């Protein structure tokens, strides 16, 4: 039964990873570079919600919504202010990656400097309460998180393949110039992807903040997990990212039972390295990985 | 005649997904001879080059370089067996100087070994580099950045680099594409020099006139298959070949 509880815990953790992974993966799919600054958006989501709810005393719903919108706008700002000019200057994907790493560092440390390094909490009364799920104990919040994550992944998959806007996103991801020739405004599409992706990251950050604690380093861990989930899952399909997140979450929680919780990162990255070496196309095959 | 063959290709097949790129391609290259491969776009010519030079593994079939089985070997291995190639367009170390490119191509062969350890390029290396440029008729400075040369100059330079490895076999991918008549004749002079030195040359070309005037044999590739393997004089007389080109 312990194994079941651990697996369920892993699944619930996976739902948060999936939320971050979907936003991150979408941005990667569209712009072809790993946006490290996604982790900063995640962190900011939590801190902003905390600021508005705890410090400014705004009602819960408003704080959360404002935080999500704020972070989505931050994502847009990064795209318009940094990434788009760089792309216009024909910068390579590596240059974009470096810029995003730079921005991640900046945001992370500004948050650290302003809010301090101690952990904080965003306790919201409405979400306490525990339920039993086939013998495993889960909190109401974790259940909500899992449902939200699953539904969002499903929505994203459907939108990408079934709707016009989704197809536009895929087209831009495949070849932005060709997409332009077909009448798609690549820049506008990319903007929307950043808005939506960043919103997802903020949602994930807020959910984590309510469930556990807020620390300036939370974005770092979120990024690691998102990268692993996206690579395990294959970089094409949002459902793949969900599966990748699940594999990661379960492996971590079950593994940690055996070796101790401080090995979490090691497990994540060992998984990543194993997948990169043995099955680089991920779970859902993607032909772009090897040279 | 067997011992004269420098490169032979036997029953090469290659598929990409569902598309057949090469199907049962076989031929031999002789010493001191130029063989041309012609065919419409997408006929599989560059794929054939990639298979021969190790950039792609064939699904089946064999490549023999001087009777040694080099099927599926890495490009660098095949290069060291005495095969040099050029690429469609031009591949060079663009941001490096002409001299650097030459020193790279010379590897450890004709350039003074001490150069590799030194901080300054010894004069003998510079002299040899200048000789090479003179052979191809390139009047450019050794410290010129390779990427800044004109297209024709880059093409000649990449051919000069082929010479440096002292190869027995050369595979040239569309050497006459995109260059003016002066460069075309310079390249022809170079090809003649190479055949006199006993090298085998395999050329992909669309420029039929050039092909017919320089080559000893012409292979026609259509949709991955060898359609014909004829003498150049027969090319103009063959309806099938001409139709293929008008269509393609």
């Amino acid at each position, binding site marked *: 039964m312990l194994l079941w509880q651990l697996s369920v815990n892993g699944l619930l953790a996976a739902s948060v990873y999936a939320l971050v992974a979907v936003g991150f993966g979408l941005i990667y799919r569209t712009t072809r570079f790993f946006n490290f600054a996604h982790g900063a958006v995640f962190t900011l989501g939590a801190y902003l919600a905390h600021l508005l709810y705890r410090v400014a005393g705004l009602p819960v719903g408003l704080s959360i919504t404002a935080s999500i919108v704020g972070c989505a706008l931050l994502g847009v700002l990064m795209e318009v202010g940094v990434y788009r000019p760089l792309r216009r200057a024909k*910068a390579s994907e590596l240059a974009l990656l470096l810029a995003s790493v730079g921005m991640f560092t900046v945001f992370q440390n500004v948050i650290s400097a302003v809010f301090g390094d101690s952990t904080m909490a965003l306790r919201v009364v409405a979400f306490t309460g525990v339920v039993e799920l086939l013998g495993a104990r889960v909190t109401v919040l974790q259940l909500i998180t899992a449902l939200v994550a699953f539904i969002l992944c499903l929505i994203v998959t459907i939108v990408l393949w079934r709707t016009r806007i989704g197809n536009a996103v895929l087209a831009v991801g495949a070849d932005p110039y060709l997409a332009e020739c077909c009448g798609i405004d690549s820049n506008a599409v990319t903007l929307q992807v950043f808005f939506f992706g960043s919103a997802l990251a903020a949602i994930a950050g807020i959910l984590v903040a309510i469930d556990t604690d807020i620390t300036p380093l939370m974005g*770092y861990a979120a990024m690691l997990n998102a990268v692993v989930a996206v690579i395990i899952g294959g970089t094409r399909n949002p459902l793949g990212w969900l599966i990748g997140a699940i594999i990661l979450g379960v492996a971590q929680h079950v593994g940690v039972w055996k070796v101790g919780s401080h090995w979490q990162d090691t497990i994540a990255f060992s998984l990543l390295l194993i997948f990169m070496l043995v099955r680089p196309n991920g779970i859902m095959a993607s032909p772009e990985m090897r040279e | 005649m067997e011992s004269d063959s420098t490169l032979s290709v036997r029953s090469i097949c290659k598929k990409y997904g569902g598309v057949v790129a090469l199907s049962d391609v076989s031929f031999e290259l002789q010493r001191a001879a130029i063989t041309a491969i012609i065919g419409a776009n997408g006929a599989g010519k560059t794929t054939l080059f990639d298979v021969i030079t190790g*950039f792609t593994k064939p699904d089946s079939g064999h490549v023999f370089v001087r009777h040694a089985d080099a099927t599926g070997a890495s*490009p660098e291995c095949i290069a060291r067996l005495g095969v040099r190639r050029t*690429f469609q367009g031009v591949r060079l170390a663009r941001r490096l100087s002409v001299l650097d490119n030459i020193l790279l191509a010379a590897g450890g062969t004709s350039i003074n070994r001490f150069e590799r350890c030194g901080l300054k390029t010894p004069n003998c290396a510079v002299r040899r580099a200048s000789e090479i440029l003179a052979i191809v008729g390139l009047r450019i400075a050794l410290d010129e950045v390779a990427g800044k040369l004109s297209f024709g100059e880059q093409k000649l330079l990449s051919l000069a680099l082929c010479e440096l490895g002292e190869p027995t076999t050369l595979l040239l991918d569309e050497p006459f594409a995109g260059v003016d008549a002066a460069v075309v004749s310079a390249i022809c002079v170079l090809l003649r020099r190479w055949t006199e030195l006993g090298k085998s040359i395999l050329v992909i070309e669309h420029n039929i006139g050039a092909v017919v005037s320089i080559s000893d044999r012409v292979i026609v590739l259509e949709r991955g298959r060898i359609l014909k393997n004829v003498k150049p004089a027969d090319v103009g007389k063959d309806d099938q070949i001409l139709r293929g080109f008008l269509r393609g």
Partner: protein
Amino acid sequence: MSYAFHVVNLVGIYAILALSLNIVSGFAGLLSLSQAAFYGIGAYSVALATLHAGLPVSLAILAAMLATAAVAALVGAASTRFRRDYFVIATFAFQVLTFSLFNNLVAITGGPNGISGIVQPRILGHTLTSSRAFSGPILALAFSTFLVSTWIENSQFGRILRAVREDEPFARSLGISVSLFKVSAFAISGALAALAGGLYATYITYIDPTSFTFAESLSVLTMVIVGGLGNSCGAVIGALLFTLAPELLRAIGIAGGTAANIRQVVFGMCLVVVVFLRPAGLFREKLARRKVQSNGI
């Protein structure tokens, strides 16, 4: 006064680190986020070799360099099969993994508490203890590393690395064994990073995992990128700038924890600014030589 020597020593150590990364990321064009991992492996190796195996410091450093070169070669061999951006992720993964191992293999590394009381070097019968005493050796080694880097920069080896960076199929068509050279670059880079790590360990006499984090890898990368990828002088200047700057902040009295944050903010901003304004860095790579003496034609 000894503070000034301390700063000089830090600059020397970071110069070696930056030069080491420059070989892999500058000449070979492989953007690596794992330099701090090799730095740490070197430091821990020296710490353990001197404390548990009783090796004299110089031998320990030598052994550490060889061991780290081997590890780096393995990492290089495994990661260079990937496309550029996945390669970066692979090095990132290795960095985080190594840090995790430093932090968790408590029996070997002391975990978060690190290793203290590392043996200091003896030269001609005297044990080096003060910052001043270390300056000579550290600067000498930093200068030697600079010479090695310059030699690579101008030799056929460096030329080949650059060719591999510029156009891999072209290099392969010339008979250049691309994987071998990439792995060699990694090995040399790892060995030099270990040298820096060993010096750090025996100088500070205390090491813990927090000196070998991803942030540290990023710092070194920033030094090399701002200084100029592919330029030995640039790497040294980058190390100088980014080591002096935090010390300057400290001098104007900004509090400890926040200073670390500000240092990282500055690093991050510099990275973004350089990518934007001057991607080649402060000092461009010397690619085409000036005025080749072509007499004797």
